């Protein structure tokens, strides 16, 4: 179904002026901008927490913060990065790009779109404010296992639960909007199998979100009941089970991590295609692979729980299903490489980040495959090996995807080219510091350092010092990124509609001016 877009002129009107523009906007580009700036600010807040963690871990001993505060830092660093940086950034990119990529004037539900965004500053305002309350903020890890997060939690846990509910509502409403937009507002001629891969990635991600955010809502509500209303969902005394918490949480948690990577897959496919000057290899397989990953993501959750005491049959099942996910993921990596093969390649900043994505996400994938092997996982579980794995797939994975998208589409959004030299500098400093930070974590985890430790035995000292240095470098380098973004918004060489050589044939967004008109497509394009 596609809606008919009227082509009459509304008269010259652009955005409102001042604060009202941003509070009340229903324009997908403005809302995309809001999400992206929100995510960028959260990156620095969550990043600051990481700096506190790494400063404390720079040397053995407790020098800078006490364990009480350290646990709050690790918990909130995780919560902010997952729910406040990666997810909103991808939603922001979706908001900016999806209508343009499908030839629509805006999202299907523009007012709902505004609500979806503004729920987030509210949710995070509440969450971050708990750090300043007397009992301190949440301190039980971003995975908040019961009973540490129920019976033994500070009373600020209730704010945490409320905040998670609000974030969940935001995601669900946003996903409803995205699915409705994609199914109803595509330009005529754009069948599903002609949609850009970023659109596909978001269609699938939106379904995942609708499926699992209610499960998260369920688990935090059960927590709320256990804490305040005398129920025993996770309390053995009343006939409940702490392991139930883990099952329900990870039933949400595993699809959640695919929610955090699928849009990056879409972005990277676009960028590699553009800068190899060659169509993406195996378009249909790319679609089927993303869909398979999404479906499989529902049957692997217990690989986060291999040491809770599951019976042998259960552990083997989850080992096999987890290993299976490597296949569609591998297919995607092969297809990206096949796109580059016999292309005509240039190395602008988005391409550099995308190449690094393919290489480093693959390394993260390998450590993931190692973690899937249950008996070996007995030695990896809850150590820095896991921390290395998920940081590899999230930082040079998801975050590089977001940064690559920013460089790729900034000229479209602002009408100005970013400074290529600075962009490359940002890339190389980031690439080096990311590896200095996260690669040694594999070693220190294999050698026996557990995670969520504010202090450690002496044999881990050298690597921890190196990791901290890398982390400080990584954090500082992102200030350069901030500078580059602001500089691009304010000045820079004028960007053409096409921006990148040959991009005109690659997507409808490149047929619009840079920056695009306020309502993007006022006349519906035809797709052949």
């Amino acid at each position: 179904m596609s809606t008919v877009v009227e082509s009459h002129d509304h008269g010259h009107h652009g955005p409102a002026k001042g604060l009202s523009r941003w509070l009340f906007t229903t324009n997908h580009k403005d809302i995309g901008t809001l999400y992206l700036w929100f995510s960028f600010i959260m990156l620095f807040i969550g990043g600051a927490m990481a700096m506190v963690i790494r400063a404390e871990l720079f040397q053995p001993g407790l020098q800078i913060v006490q364990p009480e505060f350290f646990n709050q830092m690790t918990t909130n660093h995780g919560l902010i990065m997952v729910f406040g940086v990666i997810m909103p950034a991808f939603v922001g990119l979706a908001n900016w790009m999806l209508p343009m990529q499908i030839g629509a004037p805006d999202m299907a539900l523009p007012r709902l779109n505004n609500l979806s965004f503004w729920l987030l500053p509210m949710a995070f305002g509440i969450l971050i404010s708990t750090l300043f309350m007397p009992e301190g903020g949440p301190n039980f890890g971003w995975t908040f296992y019961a009973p540490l997060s129920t019976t033994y939690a500070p009373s600020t846990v209730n704010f945490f639960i409320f905040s998670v509910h609000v974030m969940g509502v935001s995601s669900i409403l946003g996903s409803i909007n995205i699915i409705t937009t994609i199914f109803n507002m595509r330009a005529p001629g754009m069948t599903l199998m002609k949609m850009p891969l970023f659109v596909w990635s978001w269609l699938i991600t939106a379904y995942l979100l609708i499926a699992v955010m209610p499960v998260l809502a369920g688990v935090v509500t059960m927590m709320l009941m256990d804490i305040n209303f005398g129920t025993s969902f996770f309390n053995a005394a009343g006939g409940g089970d702490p392991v139930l918490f883990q099952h329900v949480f990870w039933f949400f948690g595993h699809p959640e991590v695919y929610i955090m990577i699928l849009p990056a897959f879409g972005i990277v496919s676009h960028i590699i295609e553009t800068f190899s000057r060659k169509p993406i290899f195996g378009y249909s397989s790319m679609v089927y692979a993303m869909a398979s990953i999404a479906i499989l993501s529902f049957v692997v959750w217990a690989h986060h729980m291999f040491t809770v005491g599951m019976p042998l049959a259960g552990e083997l099942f989850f080992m096999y299903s987890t290993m299976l996910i490597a296949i569609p993921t591998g297919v995607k990596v092969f297809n990206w490489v096949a796109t580059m093969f016999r292309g005509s390649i240039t190395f602008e900043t988005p391409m550099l980040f995308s190449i690094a994505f393919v290489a480093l996400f693959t390394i993260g994938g390998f450590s993931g495959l190692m973690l899937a092997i249950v008996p070996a996982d007995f030695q990896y579980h809850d150590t820095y090996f896991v921390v290395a794995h998920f940081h590899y797939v999230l930082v040079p994975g998801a975050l590089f995807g977001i940064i690559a998208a920013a460089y790729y589409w900034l000229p479209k959004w602002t009408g100005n080219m970013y400074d290529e030299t600075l962009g490359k500098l940002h890339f190389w400093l980031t690439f080096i510091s990311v590896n200095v930070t996260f690669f040694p974590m594999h070693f220190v985890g294999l050698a026996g350092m557990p995670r969520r430790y504010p202090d450690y035995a002496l044999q881990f000292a050298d690597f921890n010092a190196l990791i901290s240095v890398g982390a400080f470098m990584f954090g500082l380098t992102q200030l350069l990124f901030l500078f580059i973004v602001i500089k691009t918004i304010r000045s820079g060489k004028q960007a053409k509609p096409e921006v990148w050589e040959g991009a005109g044939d690659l997507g409808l967004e490149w047929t619009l001016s840079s920056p695009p008109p306020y309502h993007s497509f006022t006349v519906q394009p035809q797709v052949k």
Partner: protein
Amino acid sequence: MAYIKKVSAKLIFALPLFFSSLIFSEKSDYNMPVGVTDVSESIFELHMIIFWICVVIGIIVFAIMFWSLWKYRKSKGAVAADFDDNFWLEIGWTVAATLVLVWMAVPSTQVMVEAYDDAEGEINILITGHQWKWHYEYLEDEVGFFSNLSTSQEQIDGEVPKGEFYLQEVDEPLVIPTNTRVRFLITGNDVIHSWWVPDFAVKQDAIPGFINTAWTNVPEPGIFRGACTELCGIKHAFMPVVVRAVEREEFDAFIAEKVALAEEERMLTSKVWTKDELMERGESFYAVNCAACHQANGQGIPPVFPALEGSQIALNDSSKHIEILMEGVQGSAMAAFGDSYSEVDIASVITYTRQAWSNGENGDGVIVTPQDIVAYKNRIDL
């Protein structure tokens, strides 16, 4: 550019050699330990097999990618081909990937079955995770003890240099006999903890209300150090696991000694204690079991951990003082110590906290003896 290419080319060969040397050393800072049991060795070998398979796949994929990036540069005149699929190639590499995974799944399943052995243990040890220490109980001999971190706070705060086994040493390690099938029964007392000894490749979560099981059989004597691997609160990093494997005769002597000590404790309950004896015992008990929350200076960390110095209960209300130690405080982190510690220990620490710091000058001076604790338990008037 050319210089960078030359260096990179050399690195491609040098790095794997460098890493192999590190990885293959027995006790390395880079790799999982081989460990000392059959199971841990099987797991190490499996880990290395999977690792090398990943390395080979990685080398192949990255080689093709980096070669393409170099060879098909537009700056060197590459013109893009226009193919965008190849059905049989895609089928081919999908099938190949599946076969590799099946190939990995077979040894993984075998090692799993080896590790998941439910046979009877010759020795059974109940391990309970507490905030923030381990309790070990030998079920056959009905003797048990707590195992606390023994690294001093001064080392942690950087006031004195750190010892060799910083954060990996305890006052009472778990002692097990070699060449014996030892079965561990693991549970939690409060929150979820996890008991891990890398050299045995044993890791199981300690879940309150539930018992998990693990086993090991250590062929040679030695000391093996592990950790708590599930976030359990502020001292998660400060409750290490230390296991001493000893020859059977030494183990039997150890158990006999523990049984004798338990008997002595029971005798001690009925002896007459002086204030100084109680203070001395209470001071060391306090340092190990109370200072973590109430602090060495008795100031606590209000509001969560009340100050004991100047506390009304410690100064004037010895009955309440006993009740709190014996029964804990509902809804707070103060556990019931009554069932975990002897009457002697409880009486000593109560006496100590009533006299220590400025409490001795300002308080009512009441001393609590082990007999008082026995009386409390049996509801005789104090």
